[in-house]
Protein backbone atom coordinates (compact mmCIF):
# COMPACT_ATOMS: atom_id res chain seq x y z
CA UNK A 1 0.00 0.00 0.00
CA UNK A 2 1.49 3.36 -0.98
CA UNK A 3 0.97 6.83 0.48
CA UNK A 4 -1.94 7.55 -1.83
CA UNK A 5 -4.01 4.63 -0.60
CA UNK A 6 -4.56 6.19 2.80
CA UNK A 7 -7.88 5.64 4.49
CA UNK A 8 -8.95 9.25 3.94
CA UNK A 9 -8.17 9.16 0.23
CA UNK A 10 -11.32 8.10 -1.57
CA UNK A 11 -10.91 6.07 -4.77
CA UNK A 12 -11.72 8.11 -7.90
CA UNK A 13 -12.13 5.03 -10.08
CA UNK A 14 -13.91 1.91 -8.91
CA UNK A 15 -14.16 -1.06 -11.26
CA UNK A 16 -16.51 -3.75 -9.97
CA UNK A 17 -16.77 -7.29 -11.38
CA UNK A 18 -16.12 -6.13 -14.91
CA UNK A 19 -16.69 -8.75 -17.60
CA UNK A 20 -16.12 -8.03 -21.27
CA UNK A 21 -17.00 -10.38 -24.10
CA UNK A 22 -16.68 -10.03 -27.86
CA UNK A 23 -19.23 -12.49 -29.22
CA UNK A 24 -18.41 -15.69 -27.37
CA UNK A 25 -14.82 -14.65 -26.63
CA UNK A 26 -14.34 -13.68 -23.00
CA UNK A 27 -11.59 -11.05 -22.81
CA UNK A 28 -11.95 -9.99 -19.17
CA UNK A 29 -13.83 -11.79 -16.43
CA UNK A 30 -14.81 -10.48 -13.03
CA UNK A 31 -12.14 -7.80 -12.85
CA UNK A 32 -12.27 -5.48 -9.83
CA UNK A 33 -9.88 -2.76 -8.66
CA UNK A 34 -9.72 0.83 -7.41
CA UNK A 35 -7.62 3.83 -8.39
CA UNK A 36 -6.96 6.58 -5.84
CA UNK A 37 -6.80 10.36 -6.19
CA UNK A 38 -3.40 11.53 -7.45
CA UNK A 39 -2.12 8.05 -8.20
CA UNK A 40 -0.15 6.97 -11.28
CA UNK A 41 -1.80 3.63 -11.89
CA UNK A 42 -0.35 1.38 -14.58
CA UNK A 43 -2.09 -1.55 -16.25
CA UNK A 44 0.50 -4.00 -17.57
CA UNK A 45 0.53 -7.34 -19.31
CA UNK A 46 1.75 -9.07 -22.46
CA UNK A 47 0.11 -8.34 -25.82
CA UNK A 48 -3.43 -9.65 -26.15
CA UNK A 49 -4.15 -9.78 -22.40
CA UNK A 50 -6.97 -7.23 -22.60
CA UNK A 51 -5.17 -4.07 -21.43
CA UNK A 52 -6.49 -1.89 -24.21
CA UNK A 53 -9.97 -3.42 -23.89
CA UNK A 54 -9.97 -2.54 -20.19
CA UNK A 55 -8.85 1.01 -20.97
CA UNK A 56 -11.56 1.42 -23.63
CA UNK A 57 -14.10 0.28 -21.05
CA UNK A 58 -12.78 2.83 -18.57
CA UNK A 59 -13.00 5.74 -21.02
CA UNK A 60 -16.50 4.80 -22.09
CA UNK A 61 -15.73 3.64 -25.64
CA UNK A 62 -16.80 0.06 -24.89
CA UNK A 63 -19.74 -0.93 -22.74
CA UNK A 64 -18.91 -3.87 -20.49
CA UNK A 65 -20.89 -7.08 -20.83
CA UNK A 66 -21.34 -7.13 -17.05
CA UNK A 67 -20.10 -5.17 -14.05
CA UNK A 68 -19.88 -1.52 -13.16
CA UNK A 69 -17.32 1.27 -13.56
CA UNK A 70 -17.63 4.30 -11.28
CA UNK A 71 -15.45 7.29 -12.16
CA UNK A 72 -15.59 10.33 -9.90
CA UNK A 73 -18.89 9.01 -8.59
CA UNK A 74 -20.41 8.69 -12.07
CA UNK A 75 -21.56 5.26 -13.20
CA UNK A 76 -20.29 5.30 -16.80
CA UNK A 77 -21.83 1.92 -17.57
CA UNK A 78 -25.35 3.29 -17.04
CA UNK A 79 -27.03 4.70 -20.15
CA UNK A 80 -27.10 8.27 -18.91
CA UNK A 81 -25.89 10.64 -21.64
CA UNK A 82 -25.87 13.68 -19.34
CA UNK A 83 -23.71 11.90 -16.78
CA UNK A 84 -21.49 10.55 -19.55
CA UNK A 85 -20.91 14.06 -20.88
CA UNK A 86 -19.98 15.22 -17.38
CA UNK A 87 -17.58 12.28 -17.17
CA UNK A 88 -16.04 13.10 -20.58
CA UNK A 89 -15.35 16.66 -19.41
CA UNK A 90 -13.54 15.34 -16.35
CA UNK A 91 -11.11 13.10 -18.25
CA UNK A 92 -8.44 13.42 -20.93
CA UNK A 93 -7.16 10.61 -23.12
CA UNK A 94 -3.83 10.29 -24.92
CA UNK A 95 -4.16 7.75 -27.70
CA UNK A 96 -1.33 5.57 -28.89
CA UNK A 97 -0.19 7.62 -31.88
CA UNK A 98 -1.47 10.95 -30.54
CA UNK A 99 -4.65 10.80 -32.67
CA UNK A 100 -4.19 14.40 -33.81
CA UNK A 101 -6.54 15.57 -36.55
CA UNK A 102 -4.27 15.65 -39.61
CA UNK A 103 -5.91 18.57 -41.35
CA UNK A 104 -5.69 20.89 -38.32
CA UNK A 105 -2.70 22.80 -36.95
CA UNK A 106 -1.44 21.92 -33.47
CA UNK A 107 -3.12 25.03 -32.07
CA UNK A 108 -6.48 23.97 -33.51
CA UNK A 109 -5.99 20.44 -32.23
CA UNK A 110 -5.26 21.61 -28.70
CA UNK A 111 -8.14 24.10 -28.84
CA UNK A 112 -10.62 21.38 -29.93
CA UNK A 113 -11.85 20.48 -26.42
CA UNK A 114 -12.20 24.19 -25.57
CA UNK A 115 -14.11 25.04 -28.73
CA UNK A 116 -16.92 22.58 -28.26
CA UNK A 117 -17.66 23.33 -24.65
CA UNK A 118 -17.59 26.97 -23.71
CA UNK A 119 -17.60 30.44 -25.14
CA UNK A 120 -14.18 31.98 -24.83
CA UNK A 121 -12.52 34.89 -26.53
CA UNK A 122 -10.06 33.86 -29.27
CA UNK A 123 -7.33 35.60 -27.28
CA UNK A 124 -7.96 33.45 -24.19
CA UNK A 125 -8.04 30.27 -26.28
CA UNK A 126 -4.78 31.35 -27.90
CA UNK A 127 -3.10 31.91 -24.53
CA UNK A 128 -4.30 28.58 -23.14
CA UNK A 129 -3.08 26.78 -26.27
CA UNK A 130 0.34 28.41 -25.97
CA UNK A 131 0.52 27.53 -22.28
CA UNK A 132 -0.43 23.88 -22.86
CA UNK A 133 2.06 23.52 -25.69
CA UNK A 134 4.68 25.08 -23.41
CA UNK A 135 3.88 22.50 -20.72
CA UNK A 136 4.83 19.70 -23.12
CA UNK A 137 7.87 21.57 -24.53
CA UNK A 138 6.26 22.38 -27.86
CA UNK A 139 6.19 26.17 -27.52
CA UNK A 140 6.26 27.80 -30.95
CA UNK A 141 4.80 24.82 -32.81
CA UNK A 142 1.21 26.06 -32.88
CA UNK A 143 1.04 26.51 -36.65
CA UNK A 144 2.65 23.17 -37.51
CA UNK A 145 0.57 20.39 -38.99
CA UNK A 146 0.78 16.96 -37.33
CA UNK A 147 2.52 15.46 -40.36
CA UNK A 148 5.40 17.89 -39.83
CA UNK A 149 6.14 16.42 -36.39
CA UNK A 150 8.08 13.38 -35.19
CA UNK A 151 6.35 10.54 -33.33
CA UNK A 152 7.41 11.83 -29.92
CA UNK A 153 6.25 15.36 -30.69
CA UNK A 154 2.88 14.04 -31.86
CA UNK A 155 2.44 12.26 -28.54
CA UNK A 156 3.37 15.36 -26.58
CA UNK A 157 0.93 17.40 -28.68
CA UNK A 158 -1.70 14.72 -28.00
CA UNK A 159 -0.94 15.13 -24.29
CA UNK A 160 -1.36 18.91 -24.55
CA UNK A 161 -4.79 18.34 -26.14
CA UNK A 162 -5.75 15.78 -23.48
CA UNK A 163 -4.86 18.38 -20.81
CA UNK A 164 -6.66 21.28 -22.46
CA UNK A 165 -9.52 21.16 -19.97
CA UNK A 166 -7.34 20.37 -16.94
CA UNK A 167 -8.93 16.95 -16.46
CA UNK A 168 -8.83 15.33 -13.04
CA UNK A 169 -8.00 11.97 -14.61
CA UNK A 170 -5.72 11.34 -17.60
CA UNK A 171 -5.74 8.03 -19.47
CA UNK A 172 -2.79 6.93 -21.60
CA UNK A 173 -2.81 4.11 -24.15
CA UNK A 174 0.76 2.82 -24.46
CA UNK A 175 2.36 6.28 -24.40
CA UNK A 176 5.93 5.03 -24.82
CA UNK A 177 5.37 2.71 -27.77
CA UNK A 178 7.44 3.70 -30.78
CA UNK A 179 9.55 6.27 -28.91
CA UNK A 180 13.33 6.19 -28.56
CA UNK A 181 14.65 5.81 -24.98
CA UNK A 182 15.48 9.51 -24.60
CA UNK A 183 12.12 10.75 -25.90
CA UNK A 184 10.40 8.07 -23.86
CA UNK A 185 12.20 9.23 -20.70
CA UNK A 186 11.28 12.85 -21.48
CA UNK A 187 7.63 11.87 -21.73
CA UNK A 188 7.89 10.08 -18.37
CA UNK A 189 9.33 13.22 -16.80
CA UNK A 190 6.48 15.31 -18.21
CA UNK A 191 3.91 12.80 -16.94
CA UNK A 192 5.41 12.82 -13.44
CA UNK A 193 5.64 16.63 -13.39
CA UNK A 194 1.97 17.01 -14.31
CA UNK A 195 0.99 14.42 -11.73
CA UNK A 196 2.96 16.21 -9.03
CA UNK A 197 2.15 19.74 -10.04
CA UNK A 198 -1.57 19.36 -10.69
CA UNK A 199 -2.38 16.26 -8.68
CA UNK A 200 -3.88 14.63 -11.77
CA UNK A 201 -4.77 10.95 -11.39
CA UNK A 202 -3.21 8.94 -14.21
CA UNK A 203 -4.19 5.57 -15.63
CA UNK A 204 -1.59 4.23 -18.03
CA UNK A 205 -1.67 1.11 -20.18
CA UNK A 206 1.89 0.10 -20.91
CA UNK A 207 4.29 -2.73 -21.52
CA UNK A 208 7.38 -0.55 -21.51
CA UNK A 209 9.31 -1.83 -18.50
CA UNK A 210 11.64 1.14 -18.09
CA UNK A 211 8.72 3.55 -18.13
CA UNK A 212 6.61 1.42 -15.77
CA UNK A 213 9.47 1.34 -13.26
CA UNK A 214 9.99 5.09 -13.60
CA UNK A 215 6.42 6.40 -13.27
CA UNK A 216 4.16 3.82 -11.62
CA UNK A 217 2.93 4.22 -8.06
CA UNK A 218 1.02 0.98 -8.39
CA UNK A 219 0.49 -1.58 -11.15
CA UNK A 220 -1.97 -4.33 -11.94
CA UNK A 221 -0.95 -7.12 -14.29
CA UNK A 222 -3.52 -8.75 -16.56
CA UNK A 223 -3.20 -12.24 -17.97
CA UNK A 224 -4.77 -13.74 -21.06
CA UNK A 225 -5.48 -17.22 -19.69
CA UNK A 226 -6.80 -15.96 -16.33
CA UNK A 227 -8.83 -13.23 -18.15
CA UNK A 228 -8.11 -10.92 -15.25
CA UNK A 229 -5.64 -9.54 -12.73
CA UNK A 230 -2.84 -11.88 -11.64
CA UNK A 231 -0.76 -9.37 -9.66
CA UNK A 232 -1.16 -5.98 -8.03
CA UNK A 233 1.24 -3.74 -6.13
CA UNK A 234 4.41 -1.70 -6.27
CA UNK A 235 6.34 -2.50 -9.48
CA UNK A 236 9.71 -2.89 -7.79
CA UNK A 237 8.20 -5.17 -5.16
CA UNK A 238 6.56 -7.33 -7.85
CA UNK A 239 9.81 -7.50 -9.80
CA UNK A 240 11.84 -8.65 -6.82
CA UNK A 241 9.44 -10.63 -4.68
CA UNK A 242 6.72 -12.12 -6.87
CA UNK A 243 6.45 -15.91 -6.96
CA UNK A 244 4.24 -16.00 -10.06
CA UNK A 245 6.38 -17.13 -13.03
CA UNK A 246 4.41 -14.91 -15.43
CA UNK A 247 4.97 -11.83 -13.27
CA UNK A 248 8.64 -12.67 -12.76
CA UNK A 249 9.27 -13.15 -16.48
CA UNK A 250 7.43 -9.93 -17.36
CA UNK A 251 9.22 -7.70 -14.86
CA UNK A 252 12.63 -9.28 -15.46
CA UNK A 253 12.19 -9.35 -19.23
CA UNK A 254 13.17 -13.01 -19.39
CA UNK A 255 11.69 -16.37 -20.30
CA UNK A 256 13.21 -17.99 -17.21
CA UNK A 257 10.08 -17.86 -15.08
CA UNK A 258 7.98 -19.56 -17.73
CA UNK A 259 10.16 -22.66 -18.00
CA UNK A 260 8.59 -25.72 -16.46
Amino acid at each position, binding site marked *: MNHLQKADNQPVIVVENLTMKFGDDIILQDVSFEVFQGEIFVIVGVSGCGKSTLLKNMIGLYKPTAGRIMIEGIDITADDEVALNRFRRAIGVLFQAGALI*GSMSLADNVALPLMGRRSMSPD*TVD*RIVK*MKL*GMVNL*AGYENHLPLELSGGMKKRAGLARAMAM*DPTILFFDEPNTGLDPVTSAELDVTVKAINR*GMGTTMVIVSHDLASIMSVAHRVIMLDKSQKGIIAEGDPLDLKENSKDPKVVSFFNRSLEGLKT
Partner: protein
Amino acid sequence: MKDQSGDYTLNIEERNRLVTLSFSGRIDLETMESVNSRLDAFWESSHPAEIAADLSGVKYMDSAGAMLLLQLEEKAKDIGISFQFLHEKEEFKGIMNLLDMEALHIPPLISEGDQKGFFELLGEAAQRGYDDFIRVMTFIGELLTAMMHSLRHPLAVRWAAVFFYMKRVGVDGLPIVSLISLLVGVIIAFMSSLQLKQFGATTYVAALVGFAMVRELGPLMTAIIVAGRSGSAFSAEIGSMMINEEVDALTTMGFDPVRFLAIPKVLASILVVPLLTIYSAFFGIVGGLMVGVLGLDLTVHSFIKQTMESFKVFDVVSSLIKAAVFAMLISGIACQRGFQVRGGAEAVGAATTSAVVAGIFLIVLANSAFAIILYYIH
Protein backbone atom coordinates in the same frame (compact mmCIF):
# COMPACT_ATOMS: atom_id res chain seq x y z
CA MET B 1 -15.09 47.33 -4.48
CA LYS B 2 -16.36 43.82 -4.80
CA ASP B 3 -17.33 41.66 -7.71
CA GLN B 4 -19.11 38.40 -7.56
CA SER B 5 -19.34 36.44 -10.75
CA GLY B 6 -20.09 32.75 -10.97
CA ASP B 7 -18.02 30.93 -8.41
CA TYR B 8 -15.40 33.51 -7.52
CA THR B 9 -15.06 36.84 -5.75
CA LEU B 10 -12.43 39.49 -6.28
CA ASN B 11 -11.98 42.22 -3.63
CA ILE B 12 -9.88 45.20 -4.57
CA GLU B 13 -8.65 47.35 -1.67
CA GLU B 14 -6.45 50.39 -2.21
CA ARG B 15 -4.56 52.02 0.68
CA ASN B 16 -1.72 54.53 0.08
CA ARG B 17 -1.12 53.12 -3.41
CA LEU B 18 -0.81 49.60 -1.98
CA VAL B 19 -3.46 47.51 -3.67
CA THR B 20 -4.59 44.19 -2.22
CA LEU B 21 -6.37 41.90 -4.68
CA SER B 22 -8.19 39.28 -2.62
CA PHE B 23 -9.24 36.31 -4.71
CA SER B 24 -11.56 33.65 -3.42
CA GLY B 25 -13.60 30.76 -4.78
CA ARG B 26 -12.65 29.18 -8.07
CA ILE B 27 -10.00 30.70 -10.30
CA ASP B 28 -10.21 28.41 -13.32
CA LEU B 29 -11.17 27.99 -16.95
CA GLU B 30 -14.82 28.79 -16.13
CA THR B 31 -14.19 32.06 -14.31
CA MET B 32 -11.05 33.10 -16.20
CA GLU B 33 -12.76 35.32 -18.76
CA SER B 34 -14.64 37.23 -16.09
CA VAL B 35 -11.61 37.65 -13.77
CA ASN B 36 -9.61 38.83 -16.75
CA SER B 37 -12.02 41.62 -17.67
CA ARG B 38 -12.15 42.70 -14.02
CA LEU B 39 -8.37 42.92 -13.95
CA ASP B 40 -8.31 44.86 -17.24
CA ALA B 41 -10.70 47.39 -15.71
CA PHE B 42 -8.50 47.56 -12.62
CA TRP B 43 -5.38 48.36 -14.66
CA GLU B 44 -7.18 51.16 -16.47
CA SER B 45 -8.53 52.87 -13.37
CA SER B 46 -5.76 52.31 -10.87
CA HIS B 47 -2.08 53.20 -10.74
CA PRO B 48 -0.65 51.35 -7.74
CA ALA B 49 2.92 51.34 -6.50
CA GLU B 50 2.61 47.92 -4.94
CA ILE B 51 0.30 44.96 -5.45
CA ALA B 52 -0.40 42.01 -3.18
CA ALA B 53 -2.52 39.12 -4.44
CA ASP B 54 -4.15 37.38 -1.53
CA LEU B 55 -5.02 33.79 -2.42
CA SER B 56 -6.18 32.68 1.03
CA GLY B 57 -9.80 32.34 -0.08
CA VAL B 58 -9.10 30.43 -3.30
CA LYS B 59 -10.64 26.97 -3.07
CA TYR B 60 -9.74 25.68 -6.53
CA MET B 61 -7.25 26.73 -9.16
CA ASP B 62 -6.45 25.03 -12.44
CA SER B 63 -3.68 25.75 -14.94
CA ALA B 64 -5.73 28.42 -16.71
CA GLY B 65 -6.25 30.23 -13.37
CA ALA B 66 -2.58 29.87 -12.50
CA MET B 67 -1.62 31.34 -15.88
CA LEU B 68 -3.91 34.30 -15.26
CA LEU B 69 -2.26 35.05 -11.90
CA LEU B 70 1.25 34.60 -13.29
CA GLN B 71 0.41 36.98 -16.13
CA LEU B 72 -0.83 39.49 -13.57
CA GLU B 73 2.51 39.20 -11.77
CA GLU B 74 4.38 39.51 -15.05
CA LYS B 75 2.49 42.63 -16.06
CA ALA B 76 3.06 44.29 -12.69
CA LYS B 77 6.77 43.57 -12.77
CA ASP B 78 7.05 44.75 -16.39
CA ILE B 79 5.85 48.21 -15.41
CA GLY B 80 7.99 48.30 -12.28
CA ILE B 81 5.38 47.62 -9.63
CA SER B 82 6.41 45.36 -6.79
CA PHE B 83 4.19 42.28 -6.61
CA GLN B 84 3.72 39.41 -4.19
CA PHE B 85 1.38 36.50 -3.62
CA LEU B 86 -0.01 36.15 -0.09
CA HIS B 87 -1.18 32.89 1.48
CA GLU B 88 -0.23 30.81 -1.52
CA LYS B 89 -1.04 27.14 -0.93
CA GLU B 90 1.49 24.42 -1.81
CA GLU B 91 -0.78 22.89 -4.46
CA PHE B 92 -1.07 26.27 -6.23
CA LYS B 93 2.71 26.61 -6.22
CA GLY B 94 2.90 23.16 -7.81
CA ILE B 95 0.68 24.22 -10.69
CA MET B 96 2.43 27.58 -11.13
CA ASN B 97 5.83 25.90 -11.22
CA LEU B 98 4.58 23.63 -13.99
CA LEU B 99 3.81 26.58 -16.25
CA ASP B 100 6.46 27.92 -18.55
CA MET B 101 5.58 31.60 -18.97
CA GLU B 102 8.29 31.98 -21.60
CA ALA B 103 6.18 29.72 -23.85
CA LEU B 104 3.54 32.44 -24.13
CA HIS B 105 6.04 34.81 -25.72
CA ILE B 106 7.74 32.45 -28.16
CA PRO B 107 6.65 33.41 -31.66
CA PRO B 108 5.36 30.63 -33.93
CA LEU B 109 8.19 28.81 -35.70
CA ILE B 110 6.28 28.95 -38.95
CA SER B 111 3.84 31.67 -39.81
CA GLU B 112 0.22 30.97 -40.55
CA GLY B 113 0.62 31.44 -44.31
CA ASP B 114 1.56 34.86 -45.58
CA GLN B 115 -0.74 36.91 -47.74
CA LYS B 116 0.35 36.34 -51.33
CA GLY B 117 -0.09 38.71 -54.23
CA PHE B 118 -2.09 37.97 -57.36
CA PHE B 119 0.94 37.34 -59.55
CA GLU B 120 2.56 35.13 -56.95
CA LEU B 121 -0.60 33.01 -56.74
CA LEU B 122 -0.83 32.92 -60.54
CA GLY B 123 2.79 31.83 -60.81
CA GLU B 124 2.32 29.15 -58.19
CA ALA B 125 -0.76 27.83 -59.96
CA ALA B 126 1.12 27.71 -63.27
CA GLN B 127 4.05 25.94 -61.63
CA ARG B 128 1.67 23.42 -60.04
CA GLY B 129 0.03 22.79 -63.41
CA TYR B 130 3.42 22.27 -65.04
CA ASP B 131 4.61 19.94 -62.26
CA ASP B 132 1.38 17.98 -62.49
CA PHE B 133 1.77 17.63 -66.26
CA ILE B 134 5.33 16.32 -65.82
CA ARG B 135 4.17 13.86 -63.15
CA VAL B 136 1.32 12.58 -65.30
CA MET B 137 3.64 12.19 -68.31
CA THR B 138 6.22 10.36 -66.17
CA PHE B 139 3.53 8.07 -64.86
CA ILE B 140 2.21 7.35 -68.35
CA GLY B 141 5.77 6.40 -69.33
CA GLU B 142 6.05 4.08 -66.33
CA LEU B 143 2.62 2.62 -67.02
CA LEU B 144 3.41 1.93 -70.70
CA THR B 145 6.73 0.34 -69.75
CA ALA B 146 4.95 -1.85 -67.22
CA MET B 147 2.27 -2.73 -69.82
CA MET B 148 4.94 -3.73 -72.35
CA HIS B 149 6.58 -5.84 -69.66
CA SER B 150 3.24 -7.52 -68.96
CA LEU B 151 2.73 -8.26 -72.66
CA ARG B 152 6.16 -9.86 -72.89
CA HIS B 153 5.77 -11.74 -69.60
CA PRO B 154 2.06 -12.51 -69.26
CA LEU B 155 2.75 -14.94 -66.44
CA ALA B 156 4.22 -12.14 -64.32
CA VAL B 157 0.83 -10.37 -64.24
CA ARG B 158 -1.20 -10.96 -61.07
CA TRP B 159 -4.18 -12.48 -62.88
CA ALA B 160 -6.06 -13.20 -59.65
CA ALA B 161 -6.02 -9.46 -58.95
CA VAL B 162 -7.01 -8.72 -62.55
CA PHE B 163 -10.08 -10.98 -62.21
CA PHE B 164 -10.92 -9.40 -58.85
CA TYR B 165 -10.96 -5.91 -60.38
CA MET B 166 -12.84 -7.16 -63.47
CA LYS B 167 -15.59 -8.23 -61.09
CA ARG B 168 -15.43 -4.93 -59.19
CA VAL B 169 -15.49 -2.71 -62.28
CA GLY B 170 -17.57 -4.89 -64.59
CA VAL B 171 -19.97 -7.20 -62.80
CA ASP B 172 -20.62 -4.91 -59.86
CA GLY B 173 -20.99 -1.89 -62.16
CA LEU B 174 -23.43 -3.58 -64.53
CA PRO B 175 -26.70 -2.72 -62.70
CA ILE B 176 -26.03 1.02 -62.53
CA VAL B 177 -24.67 1.19 -66.10
CA SER B 178 -27.74 -0.69 -67.36
CA LEU B 179 -30.19 1.46 -65.45
CA ILE B 180 -28.66 4.79 -66.49
CA SER B 181 -28.31 3.71 -70.13
CA LEU B 182 -31.90 2.53 -70.22
CA LEU B 183 -33.08 5.88 -68.91
CA VAL B 184 -30.85 7.78 -71.35
CA GLY B 185 -32.38 5.70 -74.17
CA VAL B 186 -35.86 6.55 -72.93
CA ILE B 187 -35.02 10.26 -72.72
CA ILE B 188 -33.47 10.45 -76.21
CA ALA B 189 -36.38 8.58 -77.78
CA PHE B 190 -38.96 10.68 -76.00
CA MET B 191 -37.35 14.07 -76.64
CA SER B 192 -36.58 13.34 -80.29
CA SER B 193 -40.06 11.96 -80.93
CA LEU B 194 -41.54 15.28 -79.83
CA GLN B 195 -39.58 17.05 -82.58
CA LEU B 196 -39.88 14.34 -85.24
CA LYS B 197 -43.67 14.11 -84.77
CA GLN B 198 -44.02 17.55 -86.37
CA PHE B 199 -42.64 16.13 -89.62
CA GLY B 200 -44.32 12.73 -89.28
CA ALA B 201 -40.90 11.15 -89.04
CA THR B 202 -41.26 9.23 -85.79
CA THR B 203 -39.98 6.06 -87.47
CA TYR B 204 -36.52 7.63 -87.40
CA VAL B 205 -36.50 7.57 -83.59
CA ALA B 206 -35.10 4.01 -83.73
CA ALA B 207 -32.21 5.02 -85.97
CA LEU B 208 -31.45 8.06 -83.86
CA VAL B 209 -31.34 6.13 -80.57
CA GLY B 210 -29.31 3.26 -82.06
CA PHE B 211 -26.77 5.53 -83.74
CA ALA B 212 -26.36 7.78 -80.69
CA MET B 213 -26.02 4.96 -78.18
CA VAL B 214 -23.56 2.91 -80.25
CA ARG B 215 -21.39 5.75 -81.55
CA GLU B 216 -21.28 8.27 -78.71
CA LEU B 217 -23.41 7.88 -75.63
CA GLY B 218 -22.68 4.21 -74.86
CA PRO B 219 -18.91 4.66 -74.50
CA LEU B 220 -19.25 8.10 -72.91
CA MET B 221 -21.88 7.23 -70.29
CA THR B 222 -20.07 4.03 -69.36
CA ALA B 223 -16.74 5.80 -69.01
CA ILE B 224 -18.21 8.54 -66.81
CA ILE B 225 -19.88 5.98 -64.53
CA VAL B 226 -16.67 3.93 -64.33
CA ALA B 227 -14.68 7.08 -63.50
CA GLY B 228 -17.04 7.85 -60.65
CA ARG B 229 -17.35 4.30 -59.33
CA SER B 230 -13.99 2.69 -59.94
CA GLY B 231 -11.59 5.57 -60.61
CA SER B 232 -12.35 7.02 -57.18
CA ALA B 233 -11.97 3.60 -55.54
CA PHE B 234 -8.59 2.99 -57.22
CA SER B 235 -7.09 6.29 -56.12
CA ALA B 236 -8.45 5.99 -52.56
CA GLU B 237 -7.07 2.47 -52.27
CA ILE B 238 -3.58 3.35 -53.50
CA GLY B 239 -3.63 6.64 -51.58
CA SER B 240 -4.33 4.88 -48.26
CA MET B 241 -1.57 2.40 -49.06
CA MET B 242 0.82 5.32 -49.60
CA ILE B 243 -0.02 6.77 -46.19
CA ASN B 244 0.36 3.42 -44.42
CA GLU B 245 3.78 2.90 -46.02
CA GLU B 246 2.43 -0.23 -47.74
CA VAL B 247 3.75 1.01 -51.09
CA ASP B 248 7.18 1.58 -49.52
CA ALA B 249 7.04 -1.97 -48.15
CA LEU B 250 6.32 -3.34 -51.65
CA THR B 251 9.25 -1.38 -53.05
CA THR B 252 11.67 -2.71 -50.43
CA MET B 253 10.46 -6.25 -51.16
CA GLY B 254 11.55 -5.71 -54.75
CA PHE B 255 8.15 -5.12 -56.37
CA ASP B 256 7.57 -2.31 -58.81
CA PRO B 257 4.50 -0.58 -57.29
CA VAL B 258 3.19 0.41 -60.72
CA ARG B 259 3.43 -3.16 -61.98
CA PHE B 260 2.07 -4.61 -58.75
CA LEU B 261 -0.79 -2.21 -58.03
CA ALA B 262 -1.63 -0.29 -61.21
CA ILE B 263 -1.34 -2.94 -63.93
CA PRO B 264 -4.07 -5.28 -62.58
CA LYS B 265 -6.47 -2.34 -62.28
CA VAL B 266 -5.65 -0.93 -65.72
CA LEU B 267 -5.78 -4.33 -67.46
CA ALA B 268 -9.05 -5.24 -65.77
CA SER B 269 -10.58 -1.91 -66.82
CA ILE B 270 -9.38 -2.27 -70.44
CA LEU B 271 -10.89 -5.75 -70.63
CA VAL B 272 -14.19 -5.00 -68.99
CA VAL B 273 -15.19 -1.43 -69.93
CA PRO B 274 -15.77 -2.34 -73.65
CA LEU B 275 -18.12 -5.10 -72.45
CA LEU B 276 -19.95 -2.63 -70.25
CA THR B 277 -20.17 -0.32 -73.27
CA ILE B 278 -21.94 -3.04 -75.27
CA TYR B 279 -24.40 -3.48 -72.42
CA SER B 280 -24.87 0.26 -72.22
CA ALA B 281 -25.69 0.55 -75.92
CA PHE B 282 -28.01 -2.45 -75.69
CA PHE B 283 -29.97 -1.08 -72.75
CA GLY B 284 -30.13 2.36 -74.34
CA ILE B 285 -31.73 0.80 -77.40
CA VAL B 286 -34.12 -1.16 -75.17
CA GLY B 287 -35.11 2.15 -73.55
CA GLY B 288 -35.77 3.65 -77.00
CA LEU B 289 -37.74 0.55 -77.96
CA MET B 290 -39.97 0.94 -74.92
CA VAL B 291 -40.85 4.51 -75.90
CA GLY B 292 -41.23 3.56 -79.58
CA VAL B 293 -43.54 0.62 -78.95
CA LEU B 294 -45.58 2.03 -76.09
CA GLY B 295 -45.77 5.66 -77.15
CA LEU B 296 -45.23 5.92 -80.90
CA ASP B 297 -47.11 2.89 -82.24
CA LEU B 298 -43.99 1.38 -83.80
CA THR B 299 -43.74 -2.40 -83.97
CA VAL B 300 -40.92 -4.23 -82.27
CA HIS B 301 -39.86 -5.69 -85.60
CA SER B 302 -39.66 -2.37 -87.44
CA PHE B 303 -37.86 -0.71 -84.53
CA ILE B 304 -35.17 -3.42 -84.44
CA LYS B 305 -34.83 -3.38 -88.23
CA GLN B 306 -34.40 0.41 -88.24
CA THR B 307 -31.91 0.19 -85.44
CA MET B 308 -29.82 -2.48 -87.14
CA GLU B 309 -29.64 -0.39 -90.30
CA SER B 310 -28.57 2.72 -88.41
CA PHE B 311 -25.00 1.65 -87.63
CA LYS B 312 -22.27 -0.42 -89.26
CA VAL B 313 -19.63 -2.80 -87.98
CA PHE B 314 -17.13 0.04 -88.20
CA ASP B 315 -19.16 2.04 -85.66
CA VAL B 316 -19.28 -0.86 -83.21
CA VAL B 317 -15.56 -1.58 -83.50
CA SER B 318 -14.58 2.06 -83.19
CA SER B 319 -16.81 2.46 -80.13
CA LEU B 320 -15.18 -0.57 -78.47
CA ILE B 321 -11.70 0.85 -79.17
CA LYS B 322 -12.85 4.15 -77.75
CA ALA B 323 -14.11 2.39 -74.62
CA ALA B 324 -10.77 0.62 -74.15
CA VAL B 325 -8.87 3.90 -74.46
CA PHE B 326 -11.25 5.60 -72.00
CA ALA B 327 -10.72 2.70 -69.58
CA MET B 328 -6.98 3.11 -69.75
CA LEU B 329 -7.21 6.87 -69.17
CA ILE B 330 -9.59 6.55 -66.23
CA SER B 331 -7.71 3.80 -64.42
CA GLY B 332 -4.30 5.26 -65.27
CA ILE B 333 -5.05 8.74 -63.93
CA ALA B 334 -6.77 7.23 -60.87
CA CYS B 335 -3.68 5.17 -60.01
CA GLN B 336 -1.41 8.15 -60.65
CA ARG B 337 -3.44 10.36 -58.31
CA GLY B 338 -3.28 7.61 -55.70
CA PHE B 339 0.51 7.34 -55.94
CA GLN B 340 0.73 11.11 -55.56
CA VAL B 341 -0.80 11.09 -52.04
CA ARG B 342 1.44 12.46 -49.28
CA GLY B 343 0.33 13.25 -45.74
CA GLY B 344 -2.94 12.21 -44.19
CA ALA B 345 -6.61 11.42 -44.64
CA GLU B 346 -7.29 14.79 -46.26
CA ALA B 347 -4.80 14.07 -49.07
CA VAL B 348 -6.65 10.84 -49.90
CA GLY B 349 -9.88 12.77 -50.27
CA ALA B 350 -8.21 15.35 -52.51
CA ALA B 351 -6.64 12.61 -54.67
CA THR B 352 -9.98 10.86 -55.07
CA THR B 353 -11.73 14.05 -56.16
CA SER B 354 -8.90 14.85 -58.52
CA ALA B 355 -8.99 11.30 -59.99
CA VAL B 356 -12.67 11.64 -60.92
CA VAL B 357 -12.41 15.20 -62.25
CA ALA B 358 -9.26 14.52 -64.27
CA GLY B 359 -10.72 11.20 -65.47
CA ILE B 360 -13.87 12.82 -66.85
CA PHE B 361 -11.86 15.67 -68.36
CA LEU B 362 -9.58 13.19 -70.16
CA ILE B 363 -12.58 11.20 -71.41
CA VAL B 364 -14.12 14.27 -72.99
CA LEU B 365 -10.77 15.36 -74.44
CA ALA B 366 -10.14 11.91 -75.93
CA ASN B 367 -13.69 11.75 -77.26
CA SER B 368 -13.14 14.98 -79.19
CA ALA B 369 -9.93 13.60 -80.64
CA PHE B 370 -11.74 10.40 -81.64
CA ALA B 371 -14.52 12.37 -83.33
CA ILE B 372 -11.99 14.09 -85.60
CA ILE B 373 -9.85 11.01 -86.26
CA LEU B 374 -12.84 8.74 -87.01
CA TYR B 375 -14.30 11.34 -89.38
CA TYR B 376 -11.17 11.27 -91.52
CA ILE B 377 -10.72 7.48 -91.37
CA HIS B 378 -14.27 6.92 -92.39
